[in-house]
């Protein structure tokens, strides 16, 4: 086995093991609670469809009725792992069993990043690229829940990688047609995971087009022979054709909800996202409710959440890529593949630019431009490797190693420090959670922090107490109960007026609910809480006598 393969497989195995080990501490987020239920329902579809093929459409309508705001591929995978690990083997609870599907895709992401890192910057690049992605605390948090953002990021990276391999000289064992076919299948899986994958083919086509203009560069470098962007007398990007054909086929095949009434259901699905609600969101002391939203938002939030040294490396990588295009354009860098550089640059910048658009809803932390992060990680890793080679060619590995240690050690520290509160992670430029709270940034989202007060609630809540979980859904509360993490005698309340115990999660837009709790319980004094660096994330209130 080659060193590259060992590194890539080690990364894949390491991410899978780490995700499984650190996942139980991460709470159930709002969307996850819905996807876990949906996955359980989707998993029952296939056996029922095989048993009674004549009624397959009716079965599809029934089993895929939960949550058709998003397609079926990733949730189907969550259902598969849940069936295997929870229903059949009984080695996990239902939530961790569903999450295993997400961990597998995170592991796939690590493998791809390492492989592509090796292609771009040698074995050191392959070793560093996944670290630049997974040691960003918010990215690390997204490894765990059974939600769609990291899966679609992994599948978009995979599609882009297959596209790149199909059109460049480094094709490996597969032919151009093989990689094109793979990119079509992978795009289908990405489309079957989340709708932001629809933006991928235009970005790839754009990279191919702009990469075809090579200025004074007379010949291609070894990595770009017959490369992505060549037009006259060179290879056509057949991968785009494969994507156009196979993408929708895989989408429909993995989402039986679309097996009839296809067009109106696709229209309803996309229409939902075109007119998505704007959830209120705190940004620089202002509660954003309606467009136009600030254009700088994704750039500022990225700059305040990615650990500073990784951020510097990523920005350096972007500048290096742009400089390589300019040098090649001027005919000074014959070895540089202009199309590859464009592909990396556009893939890094487009997801951020898309969310910067003022009418696009701004919520959910960094998750909506997460697909940019693997490419920024690749560029950052390559920039560090290049720096080592330039500064001390004879000891390039050692120089890169020292720089990588300086860049990654504080990030690893931060990941360990904020876990499992990844949605509340802010970097040292922001001043961590305290600095971000002073700045008036969104403190957290998705209701997963509740998990940290469950032991206190189990220990102190009066028997049969009614608990208001606020941002945590009733579905999540029941999943905690079924997984044995919340007492079964506790009931779910609809609001503070109806509750004995209130688990209030800090959201500026819902502050009135906390004050209603004060009125209702006749106290403003919490009985328990969760704080990250003294910043309250969750505060538990109780009626007199309901907390023992």
């Amino acid at each position, binding site marked *: 086995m080659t060193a590259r393969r060992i590194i890539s497989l080690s990364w894949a195995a390491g991410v899978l093991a780490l995700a499984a080990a650190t996942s139980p501490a991460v709470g159930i987020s709002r969307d996850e609670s819905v996807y876990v239920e949906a996955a359980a329902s989707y998993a029952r579809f296939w056996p029922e469809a095989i048993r009674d093929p004549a009624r397959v459409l009716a079965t599809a309508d029934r089993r895929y009725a939960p949550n058709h705001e998003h397609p079926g591929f990733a949730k189907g995978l969550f259902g598969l792992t849940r069936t295997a690990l929870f229903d059949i083997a009984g080695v996990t609870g239902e939530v961790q069993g569903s999450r295993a599907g997400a961990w597998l895709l995170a592991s796939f992401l690590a493998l791809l990043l390492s492989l592509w890192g090796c292609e771009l910057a040698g074995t050191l690049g392959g070793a560093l690229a996944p670290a630049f992605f997974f040691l960003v605390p918010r990215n690390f948090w997204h490894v765990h829940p059974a939600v769609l953002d990291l899966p679609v990021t992994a599948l978009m990276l995979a599609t882009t990688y297959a596209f790149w391999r199909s059109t460049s000289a480094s094709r490996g064992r597969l032919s151009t047609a093989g990689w094109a076919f793979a990119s079509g299948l992978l795009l289908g899986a990405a489309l079957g995971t989340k709708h932001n994958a629809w933006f991928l083919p235009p970005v790839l086509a754009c990279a191919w087009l702009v990469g075809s203009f090579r200025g004074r560069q007379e010949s291609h470098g070894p990595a770009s022979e017959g490369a992505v962007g060549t037009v006259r007398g060179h290879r056509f990007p057949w991968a785009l054709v494969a994507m156009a054909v196979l993408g929708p086929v895989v989408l429909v095949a993995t989402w039986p909800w679309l097996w009839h009434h296809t067009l109106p259901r696709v229209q309803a699905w996309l229409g939902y996202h075109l007119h998505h609600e704007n959830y209120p969101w705190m940004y620089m*002391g202002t509660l954003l409710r309606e467009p136009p939203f600030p254009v700088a938002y994704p750039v500022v939030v990225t700059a305040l959440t990615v650990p500073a*040294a990784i951020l510097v490396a990523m920005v350096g990588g972007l500048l290096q890529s742009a400089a390589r295009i300019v040098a090649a354009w001027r005919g000074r860098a014959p070895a540089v593949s202009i199309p590859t550089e464009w592909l990396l640059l556009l893939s890094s910048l487009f997801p951020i630019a898309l969310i910067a658009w003022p009418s696009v809803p701004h919520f959910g932390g960094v998750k909506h431009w997460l697909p940019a992060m693997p490419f920024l990680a690749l560029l950052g890793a390559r920039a560090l490797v290049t720096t080592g080679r*330039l500064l001390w060619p004879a000891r390039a590995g050692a120089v890169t190693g020292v720089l990588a240690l300086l860049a990654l*050690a504080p990030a690893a*520290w*931060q990941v360990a420090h904020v876990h499992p509160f990844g949605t509340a992670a802010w970097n040292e430029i922001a001043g961590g959670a305290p600095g971000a709270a002073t700045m008036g940034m969104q403190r957290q989202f998705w209701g997963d922090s509740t998990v940290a007060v469950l032991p206190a609630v189990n220990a102190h809540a009066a028997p049969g107490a009614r608990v208001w979980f606020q941002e945590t859904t009733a579905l999540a509360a029941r999943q905690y109960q079924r997984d044995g993490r919340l007492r079964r005698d506790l009931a779910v309340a609809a609001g503070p007026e109806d509750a004995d115990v209130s688990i209030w999660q800090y959201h500026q837009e819902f*502050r009135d609910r906390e004050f209603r709790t004060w009125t209702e319980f006749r106290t403003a004094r919490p009985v328990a*809480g969760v704080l990250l660096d003294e910043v309250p994330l969750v505060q538990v209130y109780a009626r007199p006598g309901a907390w023992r």
Partner: protein
Amino acid sequence: MNEHPDPRGPTYRLPSPPPPDPTGWYELRRRARTVWPPGDRAWASLFALAVSAAGLFGLWFQATLPGRLPSPTDWKAAAAVITREARPGDAVVLAPPWAERAREILPERIPARPEVALPILAFPSLDPEEDLRGVRRVWLLSFPGAPGGTGPVASRLAPRAASVEGPMQLGQLELTRYDLETPVLPLWSLVDRLPSASVQTRDARVTAETREVGFLPRSCVVARWSGPGLDPVVIRLASLPLGISLVGRVALAGNAPGGGASVRVKVDGVEVARADATPGRPAGQPLRFDASRLPPASHEVTVEIVPSGPVPGGVCIDLAALP
């Protein structure tokens, strides 16, 4: 071997003189061109320096952060001081405002007078119109070492204080007492008088609550309409002294979307102040009436609330008479 040209020969020319450069600009440009654009190694050095600096900054930040924030012992010490020293008319103000662990640790009532509350206030900034009603002394509890600083509250409290005691250092906490120069002590407030007031309504519910107005908790009287009917609410307070002014605020509780409401204040049947609660104005609208020209006798005060549409969160009305 190179031959020198014959200075007397026909082809010899003197080299052209350098262009006049009285300002030194051309020389500067010539020199700049020797250093710009930098070579690849220079860029790599700069990049390595930036990554190293950012990495070291990150390590320093992570290593020092816990030491910049208060420990449980610091909190216990602050609670002990406030428990010992607090008296009616005191309030605790937090700086930075997110330091709300204080609510869990500090006493909720004055220990020596359990019937009196000890308000814990968390203002992002202390605006001039924030009158700290009912407060004589402020205990400013701050984290001077917190990343992002403690905000502007201390600098805005200082001009209002007749005397300042402290700061007392309690580990990473600082406790400073500000004795306000002109405390605003109301003669009465609508919230306190609600139990004895006459309330006329068909299907609205009128209660005293703590609700969110402009991101802050405010004690106010909330009128809420549960059914489809939107009949006005009339709250009548009989026989009250007015002092020199009536002040208050009207807002939609929780800035909930929906319709608005108009609030009229009448003294002895004559409208003296009016304000509207409308969506999109989270801090509401002030109510103010100069009562200094009225005779110092007791008066009847009426508050009329007229909704203009469904108000799901309710209308929050705060009204007080200042001496």
